C-alpha cells in the first residue's frame, strides 16, 4: 500500500452534488429568512414552492441518475393502468459509484424532509394555516422523492440477487456440462 495514496476519495461529481444541495438549501433558507424580511405571503409561497419543485425535478432526474444511478417514474400502460417503473445501472457500475456522492445524496434527502416537518410543526403550533400550505407542498415533494428512490434501491437489490443466483446456477450447470464433455 502506497502511503502517499489518498485514502479517501473525493466527490466524483462536484457540480451535481452542488446543484443537488443548492435548491434544497435555497428553499429552506428562503423560507426561514423571508419570515424576517418579506411581508408578502404570496411571494414567499411562490418562490419557496418553485424552489422546492425545481429541487424535486433536479433530484429525480439529474442527481439521482448521476450520484446513485437510480431512476423512478410512473407510466400508464396500454391497458390504462398505472405502473411504477424503476431503473438502475448494472451491478458493476453501481459498485463503482462514489461513496461520498451517495452518502451526500441520501443524507441531504432525509435531512431536508426532517427540516420541513419541523417547520411544519412550528407552523402548526402557531396556527398559521397559510404557511402550513407551503410546508405541506414541500414535505410532499421531499417525501415523494424519498419513497421513490428507496423503492428503486430495493428493486435494484432484488434484481442483483436474482441475477447473482442465476449466474451461480448457470455457472454450475456449465461446469457440469464441461465435466460431461470431458468424460
Amino acid at each position, binding site marked *: 500500500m502506497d502511503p502517499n495514496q489518498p485514502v479517501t476519495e473525493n466527490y466524483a461529481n462536484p457540480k451535481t452534488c452542488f446543484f443537488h444541495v443548492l435548491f434544497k438549501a435555497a428553499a429552506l433558507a428562503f423560507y426561514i429568512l423571508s419570515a424576517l424580511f418579506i411581508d408578502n405571503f404570496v411571494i414567499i409561497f411562490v418562490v419557496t414552492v418553485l424552489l422546492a419543485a425545481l429541487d424535486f425535478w433536479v433530484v429525480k432526474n*439529474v442527481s439521482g*441518475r448521476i450520484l446513485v444511478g437510480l431512476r423512478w417514474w*410512473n407510466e400508464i400502460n396500454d391497458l390504462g393502468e398505472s405502473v*411504477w417503473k424503476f431503473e438502475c445501472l448494472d451491478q458493476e457500475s453501481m459498485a463503482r459509484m462514489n461513496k461520498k456522492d451517495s452518502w451526500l445524496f441520501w443524507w441531504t434527502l432525509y435531512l431536508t424532509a426532517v427540516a420541513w416537518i419541523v417547520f411544519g410543526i412550528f407552523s402548526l403550533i402557531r396556527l398559521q394555516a397559510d404557511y402550513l400550505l407551503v410546508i405541506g407542498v414541500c414535505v410532499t415533494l421531499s417525501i415523494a422523492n424519498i419513497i421513490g428512490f428507496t423503492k428503486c434501491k430495493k428493486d435494484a437489490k432484488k434484481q442483483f440477487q436474482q441475477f447473482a443466483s*442465476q449466474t451461480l446456477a448457470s455457472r454450475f450447470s*456449465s461446469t457440469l456440462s*464441461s465435466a460431461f464433455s470431458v468424460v
Partner: protein
Amino acid sequence: MSHSDTIPLHPSSQSDIDEIENLINASPATVLPARPPSPPRAQIPVSSSLPPPPPKPAPPKPQPHSFPPPLPPPSSSVPAPPPLPSSRPEIAASGFGPAPNTLTEPVWDTVKRDLSRIVSNLKLVVFPNPYREDPGKALRDWDLWGPFFFIVFLGLTLSWSASVKKSEVFAVAFGLLAAGAVILTLNVLLLGGHIIFFQSLSLLGYCLFPLDVGALICMLKDNVILKVVVVCVTLAWSSWAAYPFMSSAVNPRRKALALYPVFLMYVSVGFLIIAID
C-alpha cells in the same frame, strides 16, 4: 484377471452417454437448468431501459464453456455521462425496439423532453381537436408541471387583481384548486370510474389554461360586462376540454354525476374572477 478396462460398456449405457453428448453439442443453451428466460426486471419500460442488457448468464450462442461476457459498453459509467443520442421528443407508449437509455442521457435532453411533454399535453387537452381519437388515452404521459404553473399563475393573477387581502386570495385560490382537483378525482374513483389519480389531477390542471387566459384579460381590463363575457367563454372552453376525459372514465349513466362537480368548480373559479375588484 480383470479386464475391466477392456470390457465394453453395456450398450444401453453407451447410448445414454451418446445421447447426452449429442444434446450438449447440438444445443448447449437448452442443457442449462430451467431458468426464467430473462430477469423479469421491472424496468423493461416501454420507453427506456438499459442499453444491451447487462451480462446475461448464458448468451444464446453455442458456447457451453463461456462465462458471462464482459461488461456492457461504457455507457453506464459514473463520472460524466457520455452524450448518448438517446432522447426522443416524447415518450411514446408503444416503444418497441431499442429504447433510449435515460440513465445516462445529458441533462439538457431531460429538460427538453419534459418541456416538450408539457407542450404536447397542453395541446392535446385544451385545444379543439375534432379528430381526437380515444380521449381517455391522451395524457398518458401525465405530468404535474403544467398544472402547477397554471394554478400558481391563476392564483397570482387573482391576487394581483385584488386590492385588499392579497395573500388570502392567493391562498384561497391555490387551496381551492388543489383540493378541488383531488376531490374531483376521488369523486370519479368513488363513482366506480376508471381513472388514474395523477392523470386526472394533471388533466384538471391543464384544463385551467382557458381560465388563466380569462383571468389575465380580466385583470387587464376592468369592465364588468367584458369580464362576464370573457369568463363565460373561457368557462365553457374549460368544461368542454375536461368533458371527454371525465365522461370516458365513468359509466355512461353516471356521466352527469362525474361532470357536474367539475363544472361547479370551474364556475366558482369564474365567480372569483368576476368578483375580484
